[in-house]
């Protein structure tokens, strides 16, 4: 039934790997901006690390976690295998390629624009292309979630409940 264990784990490895990386550089940022670490590092390094921190926390952690968690919920709550598993792996690799394409210009100091972009400051084009690939991967995930739902008879049961309450839903399926 659970044909998505490796798929979910792969997403969670990337998500929490990004989280750990962001925690480490976040600690470094606090250190160098406190009296303890005064005069360590340059503003260039600082804002490069702030950008990497924001991208990791706001885009990589959230996107990969919600994708992995979504697949897990889809198969356990709907109680059937995930349709289109090859598409799911394609989405994973597209989004991961996006992360790599984003991280390289950040690491080279060519994209210190923070994760919220702040126009008209501009980063290297690869920064934006990489982020678009991350989003594109998550769109494939969105479609797969809809496909998984629409093939399920459970959906009809869910919609015919007199009151659509998450609590009642979980007690029904338990």
């Amino acid at each position, binding site marked *: 039934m659970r044909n998505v264990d490796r798929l979910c784990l792969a997403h969670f490895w990337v998500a929490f790997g990004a989280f750990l990386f962001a925690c480490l550089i976040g600690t470094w940022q606090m250190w160098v901006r406190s009296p303890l670490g005064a005069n360590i590092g340059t503003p260039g390094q600082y804002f490069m690390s702030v950008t990497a921190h924001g991208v990791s926390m706001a885009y990589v952690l959230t996107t990969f976690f919600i994708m992995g968690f979504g697949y897990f919920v889809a198969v356990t709550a709907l109680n059937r295998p995930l349709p289109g598993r090859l598409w799911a792996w394609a989405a994973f690799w597209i989004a991961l390629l996006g992360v790599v394409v984003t991280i390289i210009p950040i690491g080279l100091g060519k994209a210190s624009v*923070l994760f919220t972009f702040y126009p008209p400051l501009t980063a290297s084009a690869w920064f934006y292309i990489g982020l678009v690939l991350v989003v594109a991967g998550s769109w494939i995930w969105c479609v797969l979630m809809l496909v998984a739902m629409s093939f399920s008879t459970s959906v009809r049961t869910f919609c015919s409940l007199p009151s659509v309450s998450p609590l009642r839903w979980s007690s029904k399926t338990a």
Partner: protein
Amino acid sequence: MLWAFGVGVFIAAALGMILFTALTISVNPPSNVERIDPKALHLSGEFAEHNLGTTVSGDGTVIVRAIATQFMFVPQCIAVPANRRVTLRFASPDVIHGLLITGTNVNTMVIPGFVAQVHTEFTRTGDLLMPCHEYCGQGHSEMWATVQVLPENRFKPGSDGRVSCAQR
């Protein structure tokens, strides 16, 4: 139903807080929309160098004009009177900046192409910090100015109606 009610209460509370702060301590977004050519700020008009700073006009209106640019405010110190309505006007020739004045309701973005205008009344005398709060590049954290709030008897405009920060 219960969940929908809970969410409704939460949204109402959030909107209530925004309304409360807007009505009691004047925390609301600046509403002025005024265009200006960012490429010609320094050439003529109110944001040319000799017009920057604090000016008191004939009818007693206090207007502060300043430029926000990578990576400083011009002028770096702004003198204002306490307990009197002050109009602050800012413009940027390069990228988006922002500013707030600590302990007051002054908080605005400064977008190239527009004049950011806010009105306020400073109630306490002393030096206030005015940092840039919109990321504008690698010197962003070094971009700040001082607002010197002077008591009425020390806020003395010169014959040209201009006031500068007291020298110390």
